[in-house]
């Protein structure tokens, strides 16, 4: 059975939309829940200043 057989195009779009929103949430937590980027920018800034 292929996917379209049990999912209408509308349902498939709805599923993909929600999946992308959840992936966005996961990425948001990855990026913002720790000072990774600020530390990285600081490092790059320090190296640029040397």
């Amino acid at each position, binding site marked *: 059975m292929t996917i379209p057989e*049990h999912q209408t195009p509308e349902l498939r779009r709805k599923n993909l939309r929600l999946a992308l929103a959840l992936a966005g949430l996961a*990425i948001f937590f*990855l990026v913002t829940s720790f000072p*990774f980027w600020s530390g990285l920018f600081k490092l790059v800034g320090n190296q640029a200043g040397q």
Partner: protein
Amino acid sequence: MTTTTMTHDEAHHHETPKGWRRWLFSTNHKDIGTLYLTFALIMLFLGGASAMLIRLELFQPGIQLLDPDLYNNLVTNHALIMIFGAVMPAAAGLANWMIPMMIGAPDMALPRMNNLSFWILPAAATMLVLSFIVPFFPGGGTQINTGWTLYPPLSIQVGMSMDFLIFAIHLLGISSVLASINIIVTLLNMRAPGMTLLKMPMFCWTWLVTAFLLILVVPVLAGGVTMLLFDRHFGTSFFDAAGGGDPVLFQHLFWFFGHPEVYILLLPSIGVLSHVIPAFSRKPLFGYNSMVGAMIAVATIGMVVWAHHQYTIGMSLGAVTYFMIGTILISIPVGLMVFNFIATMWRGSMTFETPMLFAVAIILMFTFGGLSGVMLAVVPADMQYQDSMFVVAHFHYVLMPGAVFGLFAGVFYWLPKWTGHMYDEKLGKLFFWINVIGFNITFFPQHFLGLAGMPRRIVDYNVMFTEFNVISSIGAMIFGLSHLLLLYIIIKTIRGGKKAESRAWEGAKGLEWELDSPPAFHTWTVAPQIK
């Protein structure tokens, strides 16, 4: 709860794919569920073997078999294999098998992503096992002696095996997040008409909450280990005090993931109990709505109390008080769940088949583990107990009954549905008793060892701890070997046995029991109507 106008599976009986392609390219939720469960069983034996080696070493004081670093490497690998390799994939296996059948959906919402979520796992497991093996080779560096918490600065100094481990954690995290997204989308978008959220089977609810927890906390672990990787190789100092970093930051990131992870492991098993106990009590689940509320409360509070794992790092009085009170508060919704299970059994027409035996054992032993958890939540007491064998006893009493026994209950409960055969009840009960007695002989004495001052994660111990360690090690051998019986029962059931009816258990309720046993390759291609 829910009823349906369909009385029989009216699925299209497409031809089942054959050979290795069936498994490698599968997008069928039942096949992927089987893959997850098989993978988890293999990892259970791998993690169990490392645990038995640890207990063999601790059979006597002094160093018998393992040097200290190898001992700690085994401790690290045992934890990671059991958590990420055995328990989480097993729960995902149950979810894959059961969720679509329970909600009247033909498959998971994103079947191809489902395939990817599983097939990342063997690659991750390979990296995980390599992290253990690499130090044995010339140039392989030092053993991972950090424990599963991977605290810096030690984890920055460990050899290249740590890089394998970090990569394995990344892969495992990706797999978990993809599977969680799939489960949430399936549960929110693919339910049969008429099945409102509050008519959804409790196992589905537990997985909905678990999947959200995974999406929220796994990326933080991924971030933490990525920063660790940068500290190791790219000259950053996130956790290196010499460069202005703070090793305690890693502890916060790790436990922001690590504490909710406990509930990630527990909740699917709570979901299994919510089906097993009503089925064998022949009564509906007591307090469905309050169970849902309690679960959401556990997940919410569980996300904001992580630092009770770090009482000894030197937090302010206000901070430790907050984390202590928050942690103790969790016992309220957990207590409510236990109350609901007991109230479900109350005046029920109970029978004690293997899944129900596990359910009753879980209520008793998980409550016991929860009580020692309240002891550990109290700051001044924890100052004494921390890093002792008491902690080891506590979390094994929480996780073995709370997570693993729940999964065993689920496997025994749904095995007739999956295979079409009833398992051998006598052997099932024999497995239960050997397993539970072995477990208690192993871990109960560890409370006394911890209270007497035996530290954990140390290969040697004072001779005064010998007797309880001997008892614990003998129990561990009984407990470990009992799983061979589980394997035998599963294989025997797959190969044959008494034919299972559609509703394999007299008191079982739900859409999944309206399908044939075993169900057709494709089920619910015509959605049932829920009244």
